């Protein structure tokens, strides 16, 4: 009772001060119905991956000015480098650090954190405070992105699969007298030509520390003939995979799936032929950095087109350098599967003391004018609108966040300079109807019953997976070692996963 009384007093006092503050220039626009005068001041702590952009301070000042006026809220935005993301967010959550909103993802630890109860279930908060969050995402997206039938994070994304391609150097290709790269064979021709003619530049580097970017994973994703995809029992590892829509969990140790095995042999050839970087497992800089510093001639990237900033950066090192995207994605409608799962999520932390406000803030961020500010910066200074759906940059400084906080298909603008071809691909993956529905849509694996095996297999996999899937280890030799060590725990995980899948599918009928 005493606490309640204190709360009321504090509220009254703060209401007074913020009412005074509001005189200093509130534009009065407030659609949520809760005037800032009635809200106590709150500073929300938001943790997302990435880094501060060049004009972070300026844009944040504007963000906080608007937030103060609209919600009497200040935003304390912390960036974590991708390399430390897993470790730091883990520790932050586990130690109960004072965080209100945090980024998470299926490829990070969303499922396990949610099942351990670190995140708030959002249905009520969304209904009460998040009309714009709800409105800007189609129902399919909400349905498919639940965990155990509950919403533990706001799905962030504007497409139903990841955009992806391999960035190569247009200038080098032309210098080597090669025609535009259309197929994987063309790509190999380019890579070998670079090896033979271009001394001092490594032809290719894939992701040695990130399974998703391993060369075999990268190729399997675009192989619509087989529709092989990771089960996400442990990240993007293909050791347990789904194939087509038969509802079965496959085990690579048992099947030695020809498609995957051939890609592994291919990757090995690239490595022994010195096309793949010899440092693919140990490299310390990101692939993009390596490419923009003119050290490698091809990298896998999650985009269909070259961002303007990439070419600008490259030109600082090589004046006539230019990147182009090799897209091996299949544009036949229905040939790709989608589970309508988004890759990224923003979650409200269970331990947060400001859950209501956190949702109000998310709602605020999902309004067009605020969305634009956060993503592109200050209008008229950093960017300008072109029509309703496009934008153009004014100086390359951009905003502060996007895919980490509010990305959605309704409010996202296309860059006006995006070429026709890229726009075609981006448009394709933004339409749900272009995909066949993955039978696993809505399914999430609960690893708790086999967590010992998952832990054990993770360490075994760490010894071999990236080496094999990027060609650094000899498959004939190491695959059998991998199998000898990993077969038993993987079998148990497979059995448990299959059990859960069966139960899930039975419920669907």
């Amino acid at each position, binding site marked *: 009772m005493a606490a309640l009384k204190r709360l009321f007093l504090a509220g009254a006092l703060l209401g007074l001060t913020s009412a005074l503050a509001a005189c200093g220039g509130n534009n009065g626009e407030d659609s949520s119905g809760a005037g800032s005068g009635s809200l106590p001041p709150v500073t929300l702590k938001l943790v997302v991956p990435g880094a501060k952009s060049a004009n972070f301070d300026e844009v944040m000042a504007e963000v906080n000015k608007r937030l103060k006026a609209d919600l009497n809220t200040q935003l304390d935005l912390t960036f974590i480098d991708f390399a430390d993301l897993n470790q730091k967010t883990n520790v932050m959550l586990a130690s109960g650090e004072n965080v209100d909103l945090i980024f998470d993802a299926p490829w990070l*630890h969303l499922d396990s954190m949610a099942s351990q109860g670190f995140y708030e279930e959002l249905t009520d908060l969304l209904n009460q405070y998040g009309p714009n969050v709800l409105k800007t995402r189609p129902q399919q997206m909400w349905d498919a992105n639940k965990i155990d039938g509950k919403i533990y994070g706001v799905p962030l994304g504007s497409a139903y699969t990841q955009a992806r391609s391999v960035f190569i150097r247009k200038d080098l290709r032309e210098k080597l007298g090669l025609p535009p790269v259309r197929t994987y064979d063309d790509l190999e021709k380019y890579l070998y030509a670079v090896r033979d003619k271009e001394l001092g530049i490594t032809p290719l580097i894939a992701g040695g520390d990130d399974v998703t970017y391993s060369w075999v994973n990268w190729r399997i994703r675009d192989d619509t003939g087989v529709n092989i995809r990771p089960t996400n029992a442990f990240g993007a590892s293909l050791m347990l995979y789904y194939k087509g829509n038969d509802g079965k969990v496959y085990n690579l140790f048992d099947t030695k799936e020809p498609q995957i095995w051939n890609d592994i042999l291919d990757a090995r050839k690239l490595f022994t032929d010195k096309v793949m970087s010899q*440092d693919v497992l140990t490299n310390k800089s990101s692939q993009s950095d390596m490419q923009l510093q003119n050290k490698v001639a091809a990298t896998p990237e999650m985009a269909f087109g070259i961002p303007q900033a990439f070419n600008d950066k490259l030109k600082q090192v090589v004046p006539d350098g230019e990147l182009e995207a090799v897209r091996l994605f299949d544009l036949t409608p229905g040939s790709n599967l989608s589970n309508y799962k988004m890759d990224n999520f923003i979650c409200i932390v269970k331990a947060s003391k400001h859950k209501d406000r956190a949702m109000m803030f998310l709602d605020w961020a999902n309004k067009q004018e605020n969305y634009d500010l956060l993503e592109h910066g200050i209008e008229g200074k950093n960017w300008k609108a072109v029509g309703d759906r496009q934008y153009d940059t004014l100086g390359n400084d951009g905003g502060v966040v996007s895919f980490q906080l509010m990305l959605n298909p309704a409010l996202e603008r296309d860059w006006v300079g995006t070429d026709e071809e890229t726009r075609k691909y981006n448009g394709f993956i933004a339409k749900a109807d272009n995909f066949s529905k993955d039978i696993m849509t809505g399914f999430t694996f609960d690893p708790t019953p086999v967590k010992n095996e998952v832990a054990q297999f993770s360490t075994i996999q760490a*010894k071999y997976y990236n080496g094999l899937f990027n060609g650094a280890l000899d498959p004939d030799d190491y695959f059998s070692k991998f199998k000898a060590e990993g077969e038993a725990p993987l079998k148990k995980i497979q059995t448990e996963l299959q059990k859960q899948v069966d139960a899930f599918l039975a419920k669907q009928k």
Partner: protein
Amino acid sequence: MNNLLKDAIKQRYLYSMAVPGIVFLVVFSYIPLAGHVLAFKNFQISRGIWGSSWAGWNNFRFFFSGRDWIQVTVNTVILNALFIVFEMAFALLIALFLNEIRLKWFKRTVQSVVFLPYFISWVVVGYMAFVLFNNTDGLVNHALRSVGLRDVDWYQTPWVWPFILTVTRIWKNAGYLSIILLAAIAGLSVDYYESARLDGATRFQQMRFITLPLLKPQLIILVLLGVGRIFYGDFGMIYGIVGDNGILFPTTDVIDTYSYRALRQLGDFSMSSAIVLYQSVMGLAAVISFNAIVRRIDKDSRLF
């Protein structure tokens, strides 16, 4: 006990000076001991420590049911033993030599130079190692080539890494330890040296028969402290330098990096607590047995 209490009352001001230290120990070393209970729980943050269910020994299973735990434990102990022995040896050498330098400015400069690497973070050291040993344009391979030798795939050759890591540790930490020893040397009474000189002892003999024996207690304490942490791998170092390169794990993977990799996806607190408990128990055993050995050899130098 009674005497202690009487003494404490009599010398209350002297004793009160120990209070901050004791409070520090209690808060940061003794209270957290209760946290070991997590190792036997299915800890869920939403339910709290006591609300979570008991797990028995289940949390230890992932570690002990495979066969890697022996390897990572052995790696941890061997690497740490290498570090302790060689760091101490080099620190001692540096301290003895520094002590003999009479030119003040030169001594200071050398002291700072050997001390400096201590302040470089392991992440940066990891980059430096990569610049030296990488296979694309590594400096070491450059040097090998220029003297007509063949390239070595350093990051694919596990057996060299205990040596590289030891050298790195010496480079980084020996200077720091030498400062501690140097301070101890400065505290030795000059009388010994004076009488030795009167008896015609050379500088080397003074070093061998006066400085070294008098430094023994400090050396033993430093080694004991090291031994107490012998089951704790240096995570920052190993992860900073080796990273996720599985090829090198057979010789470099330590308990800490191993369990980090096992659990980073799961984020399971209880399972990591199980590992910490294992390390603590083994570390305690190591300290007790090392102390027992010291007690047998030289009773006065033992810690307890």
